[in-house]
């Protein structure tokens, strides 16, 4: 009887130890994935912020007269920008300036119908990507994890102006980027924002 009891107790302890080890292993795997996702979001955010900054700082470069900037707010998502365009010469030798546009586009699941979403706290936030178009042709885009994108055109006093404006002194750009594989991540989004002086 004692022999059976000893073996039973040993089996139970071994099973408990194995369960704890397995759960630790799984937890570390999840955290590692979160860490990689966070690094990806950080890298994408910094890259996207800096190349937009380089574009925006040169609004109207080589354009005679005031640079015309057009800004369209999103139809349904308050505070977000649907598109933003301006003129500038990409090369000093260009005969005419190019139209640079930034457009917010939905990101869809494989079925092409359902928009991808990210769970942030209790909210299901739709995912977007921002495309950069030069004269109507897509020449680049952000990572498809944008959850918020807003451009504010400001005058010299920092007051918002809207629609088609002839001259903008400063541009405030703000975006949030979701963390990939973030369904259970500790940090779900990164946030970037800056007010850029137009040269």
């Amino acid at each position, binding site marked *: 009887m004692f022999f059976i009891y000893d073996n039973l107790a040993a089996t139970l302890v071994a099973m408990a130890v194995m369960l704890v080890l397995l759960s630790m292993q799984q937890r*570390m795997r999840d955290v590692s994935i*979160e*860490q990689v996702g966070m690094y990806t979001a950080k890298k994408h955010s*910094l890259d996207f912020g800096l190349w937009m900054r380089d574009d925006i700082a040169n609004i109207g470069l080589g354009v005679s007269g005031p640079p015309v900037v057009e800004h369209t707010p999103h139809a349904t998502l308050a505070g977000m920008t649907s598109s933003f365009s301006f003129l500038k010469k990409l090369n000093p030798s260009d005969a005419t300036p190019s139209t640079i546009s930034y457009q917010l586009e939905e990101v869809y699941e494989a079925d092409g119908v359902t928009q991808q979403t990210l769970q942030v706290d209790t909210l299901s936030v739709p995912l977007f990507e921002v495309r950069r178009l030069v004269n109507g042709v897509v020449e680049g885009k952000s990572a498809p994890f944008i959850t918020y994108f807003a451009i504010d055109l400001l005058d010299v006093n920092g007051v918002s102006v809207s629609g088609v404006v002839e001259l903008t002194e400063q541009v405030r750009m703000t975006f949030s980027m979701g963390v990939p594989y973030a369904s259970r991540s500790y*940090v779900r989004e*990164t*946030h970037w924002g800056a007010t*850029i002086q137009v040269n």
Partner: protein
Amino acid sequence: MPQTLLAFLAMMIVTLLAINQQQRVLRIYESMLDDEMEVMAAGVALQALEIVEAQAFDSATLGGAPVTDPSQLTTLPFATGNGCSLRGLNTLCDDVDDFNGMTPDTLSFTMRNGVTFAFEVTATVDYVTTTGAGVAVALIPTYDKQITVMLQDVPQPGGRRLLFNPVRLTRLKSCDACS
């Protein structure tokens, strides 16, 4: 009896491993928060840098006055402790070296959910030489200045900072009015 001791030992080892792992997970989460803050700080630093860079190269070039020799520029060491503003008009600081060692100013970043994080911003300015292998700090006036903006988050209640180290962003500004 030996079986009980072995079982006890096994449980102790597993408990120690679990505690270690939990501490490691906490450190990783703190590092992820630091990453999130760094992205915010990078945007704010860029904004601060834009404001400093928008000022005149030197008090000698204010109003577009031509400079024909570096000795006409502000001599070292630059003054420190100016109360420069990184948010609006700068009457006190109208050229870039006025921002050197400035009294820390506070810039905030507001997330779309309304949560605001404040950053203390300071700057250092140096004359640099850009010839040769790279950029080197110069001890005499030159036609290039290096602006470095440093940000550290304002401590949370309890004195804890979320950024492990200050974020630094550097840019060179050359003198347009110099020849």
